[in-house]
């Protein structure tokens, strides 16, 4: 296989390619057209693009092939789709871009978006969001469900897309740059609590997979591995990827939020009349 083949999709999904092109395209157009003072700095743009490309890479390159036939690579794929990619996208604070497109939409089109807004608000409730976040991981890793998802092409795509969308919702709820004291966004304390709480069940699940003596996910055994590897090793590595990196990302998220909370507190103390630079990159939102 040549280098180019590794970049081509294993299972070409037009919906996925169009969605990613659209996301990057809309982001780019908004960047060029928005007023100078709203435009995100290069660091934020790069963070956004890396996040998007990571998600695209695990869905529409040769990586997807290995994800389908190796359990540990599959766990790596979900780590990117549900954690790392959305983490970077949310951290890059694409709010100015969203605002730009919201302004560009006419009133009638905004009316169409209203059900989406209702759904969004429902899913972002502080109890529903973490339950959904952990629930989806448990659901798709339920051995019977996991078996079906790896056998059925439709279920497989549903699984990956649901992980990506839920990841975006969750990390956006965590890293929403709008100040909790000035807007209705979730308070920093609650966000940190949620991050700590979602880490626990993920650690339990990961540890359970790691310490399982028998094969929990035999679909990879049944359907052939991408290369001959001991099933125990595959399961062990997959369990570790479910256990350690997500827990680390929760801690990283908590540290970022702690820094923001302290920053907000300091500026609050210094002068209540100066608007706070609440986003991570220090840019105005």
């Amino acid at each position, binding site marked *: 296989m040549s280098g180019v083949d590794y970049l081509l999709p294993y299972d070409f999904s037009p919906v996925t390619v169009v969605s990613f092109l659209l996301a990057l395209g809309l982001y780019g157009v908004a960047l060029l057209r928005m007023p100078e003072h709203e435009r995100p700095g290069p660091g934020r743009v790069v963070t956004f693009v890396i996040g998007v490309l990571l998600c695209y890479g695990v869905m529409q390159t040769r990586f997807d092939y290995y994800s389908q*036939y190796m359990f540990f690579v599959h766990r790596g794929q979900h780590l990117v789709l549900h954690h790392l990619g959305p983490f970077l996208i949310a951290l890059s604070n694409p709010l100015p871009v969203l605002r730009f497109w919201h302004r560009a939409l006419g009133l009638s089109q905004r009316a169409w978006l209203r059900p989406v807004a209702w759904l969004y608000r429902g899913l972002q409730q502080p109890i529903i969001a973490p339950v959904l976040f952990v629930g989806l991981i448990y*659901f798709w890793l339920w051995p019977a469900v996991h078996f079906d998802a790896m056998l059925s092409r439709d279920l497989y795509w549903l699984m990956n897309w649901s992980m990506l969308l839920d990841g975006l919702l969750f990390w956006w709820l965590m890293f929403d740059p709008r100040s909790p004291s000035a807007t209705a966004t979730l308070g920093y304390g609650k966000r940190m609590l949620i991050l700590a709480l979602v880490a626990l069940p993920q650690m339990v699940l990961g540890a359970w997979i790691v310490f399982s003596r028998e094969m929990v996910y035999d679909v990879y055994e049944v359907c052939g591995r991408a*290369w001959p590897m001991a099933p125990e090793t595959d399961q062990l590595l997959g369990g570790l990827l479910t256990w350690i990196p997500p827990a680390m990302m929760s801690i990283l998220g908590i540290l970022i939020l702690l820094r923001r909370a302290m920053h907000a507190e300091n500026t609050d103390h210094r002068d209540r009349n100066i608007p706070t630079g609440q986003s991570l990159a220090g840019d105005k939102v």
Partner: protein
Amino acid sequence: MMTRRAFWLCLASVLLISGCTGGDTDWHGKDISGLMPKLKFQLSNPEGQTVTAADSEGTIRLLYFGFTSCPDVCPTTLAKLEQAIRQLPEDEQEDITTLFVSVDPARDTPERLASYVAFFGKNVVGLTGDEAVLRQLAKRYRTTFGYDEPDAQGNYNVSHSSAVYVFDQAGEPRLLLRPDLSARQVGEDLEQLVQTQN
């Protein structure tokens, strides 16, 4: 209040979905109806003729990927299938075709494949094709195969699916037989499938 109601709604839908997926108790194998596409392939038999799914239509097809140098899984599985089929009444035995697809075309010459499948009963068809064609077929059934590095003698191991895909007379996917099933359990499943189809 709103949050609590939405939470219960969420829980209810999760329970509903998980309830829907646990209904395959009638079979020893895994029910794969609707999970996979219909049986479709175009491969060559040891005589060099092109074989498609239409050639065996009207019989139950057992699709299995393997290679003739396989030290353990392939011969065990094929022997188990033969034993399971022999349990059925004689007239029903004719209604089952075993399709052995070799994913090692470099080593599995037509002669080798022919003599190998002849060893496991009369309704076993040995099939193979170019690696690209085999990859397409494997991908269609959500499986794959891979080759190890050859040793000094040129021998290498091949990773492949260890399950048997069962398609009914119309080519619809029905069951996935895991390697841990006994010949008796496979026989019972096949019997049940023949009965429901007739």
